[in-house]
């Protein structure tokens, strides 16, 4: 055996002698491999992989992520991939990444928000239009199968196109902002599918549709469907030849095609939009439905007028126009607290005298203490 020269022991740092530095980069290597694997599974372009890996390396060097648990480091890789996709407008939801990583969404969310904050990353909003295409890719209704009735099979491109239009309509009518994106796409896909062959599909429920399509039915989808139908019904009330029918949420589906074709005109008339007199007084639909004033932008960053729609001097229409507002403003939930500060509250200085009696109301009497002690079996 060769004994080492004891003289050099004092000079060697622990990290050098134990390969601690190599260990750190092994962790990094593992993380990078995971990021690359994730990109491959999602079939992302090559450049995404490079970006995601560089984010991951930057993040791991950052003090907030350097020493987090392994579990979080795994999620960090997923977050970097997610951010990269979003920055390239590649539609992927957090739900997708979480399921691929078997991650809890809350933990993923916290790591993601930290990453965004610490690295100062700007992440554009998810593009719903792109999400429609990727989401519909997972639907099973585009090919004949033994468990799918023949009239239920649909052409993919037609369905994508119509679903996109319905999603756009939802976005214009405030049904999308602040809401989870997937249920909107699910509800829109259902309506679009039904409307393409209403005769045989009107009896199919949303639940059954999702089951046949092989997708999950997210709980909010029912509400989104209801909201969409309400919008469509109001629009239908502006088409003269439809007013003779008593439209309900089943029958309106048959006319979704027409409604979508004229949606700009119909929205203008069905709802009180901006501050223009002419649009609220416009004579609806007695001309051919193709006539609509070229759409003035409805949805570009604008907000609906909060004042009530002027209804004097207008013919009574079925379903008089309501303001175009987010559902939370149309059906405001009951206020839980009035919370207006009253005068006496504002006069508090913080130095008020505190009476003994006020404090004593919070103290237990001797009998109470005895009883409490017995109940709790404390010494």
């Amino acid at each position: 055996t060769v004994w080492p020269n004891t003289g050099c022991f004092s000079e060697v740092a622990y990290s050098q002698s134990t390969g601690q530095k190599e260990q750190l980069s092994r962790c990094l290597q593992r993380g990078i491999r995971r990021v690359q694997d994730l990109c491959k599974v999602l079939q992302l372009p090559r450049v995404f992989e490079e970006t995601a890996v560089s984010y991951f390396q930057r993040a791991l060097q950052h003090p907030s992520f350097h020493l987090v648990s392994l579990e979080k480091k795994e999620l960090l890789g997923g977050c970097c991939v997610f951010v990269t996709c979003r920055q390239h407008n590649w539609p992927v939801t957090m739900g997708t990444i979480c399921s691929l990583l078997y991650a809890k969404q809350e933990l993923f969310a916290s790591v993601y928000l930290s990453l965004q904050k610490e690295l100062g990353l700007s992440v554009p909003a998810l593009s719903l239009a792109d999400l429609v295409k990727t989401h519909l890719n997972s639907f099973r209704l585009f090919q004949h199968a033994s468990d799918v009735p023949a009239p239920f099979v649909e052409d993919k491109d037609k369905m994508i196109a119509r679903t996109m239009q319905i999603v756009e309509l939802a976005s214009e009518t405030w049904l999308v902002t602040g809401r989870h994106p997937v249920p909107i796409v699910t509800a829109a896909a259902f309506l679009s599918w039904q409307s393409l062959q209403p005769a045989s599909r009107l009896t199919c429920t949303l639940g059954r549709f999702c089951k046949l399509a092989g997708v999950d039915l997210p709980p909010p989808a029912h509400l989104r469907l209801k909201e969409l139908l309400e919008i469509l019904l109001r629009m239908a009330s502006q088409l003269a030849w439809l007013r003779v029918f008593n439209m309900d949420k089943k029958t309106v589906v048959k006319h979704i095609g027409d409604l979508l074709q004229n949606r700009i005109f119909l929205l203008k008339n069905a709802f009180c939009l901006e501050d223009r007199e002419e649009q609220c007084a416009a004579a609806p639909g007695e001309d051919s439905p193709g006539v609509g004033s070229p759409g003035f932008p409805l949805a570009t960053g604008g907000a609906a007028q909060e004042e009530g729609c002027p209804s004097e001097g207008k013919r009574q229409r079925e379903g008089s126009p309501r303001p175009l507002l987010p559902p939370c403003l149309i059906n405001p939930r009951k206020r839980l607290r009035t919370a207006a500060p009253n005068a006496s509250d504002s006069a508090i200085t913080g130095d008020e005298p505190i009476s003994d009696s006020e404090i004593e109301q919070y103290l237990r009497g001797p009998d109470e203490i005895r009883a409490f002690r017995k109940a709790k079996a404390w010494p």
Partner: protein
Amino acid sequence: SQFKDDLPTSPQLFPPMSPYDVDLPIQTTEDVLFGSQFNQPKELPADFSVDLSFLPDITQYNKEQNRSEDGHETQKELDGSVSRNEDSGIFMDGSSSSCPDTTQPSPEASGVCPPLTPMTPMTPVTPASESSGIVPQLQNIVSTVNLACKLDLKNIALHARNAEYNPKRFAAVIMRIREPRTTALIFSSGKMVCTGAKSEEQSRLAARKYARVVQKLGFPAKFLDFKIQNMVGSCDVRFPIRLEGLVLTHQQFSSYEPELFPGLIYRMVKPRIVLLIFVSGKVVLTGAKERSEIYEAFENIYPILKGFKKAS
């Protein structure tokens, strides 16, 4: 001259604040911008003899003790608390510049304690004509105070009606009082957190009441380093907001993830406030140490939101 000055290409306006920057010769820009008067405690000369006559509650407590109207007080407790109070530390209220030398009237005589200078004006300073005309309402104040004595939490939970203590779940007593309606977390170290008040003054009053409860339970509680840690306000701009548009134009400050949360999280740099902006037009502002930061943050965001409204 042939020697060129080596100037940095981007002058650093915001020197990074590391925890190790103890000796900063000049006030950094960040201090000026985020300038909270509560960050730096006022320095007092070393020979400052503690004159506590300007501390209304402790003085009053002494006087009440002497009156012995309360049969529960023991002599020992009286002596103990009196001597403690004389040693009690500097009452840090951030605005304690005013009082020490003036003779204050006895609190029990007037029944009213001379108010310390309010920390900030109750109403915003900006005139309504220039501003939004909307005043955010304070919804929650979080403050901390040091009672400066070790506490027996089990004992407190046993003797106080308004206390909750589940050591397996959380290592503090949760205590509540009705007026001001607040909750306190009381730790065995003697540190206390007070939440739920609607104003700085209410938070301080509440914290004092909790300290009183603890005192009445027999602990030599003081009231040191009271500090407002966070203020939350809210208001309504009264028109709906296209959050997806806002995140587009203000990407560097905004985070909008409807998959996670319906509101847009806007991290304002000056003042350093976080705003939660919702489609309904409701706005929540948090992270303030002074209420002026809340008002200023709202005045900054309002034109941005309004600008959105008119776009078409």
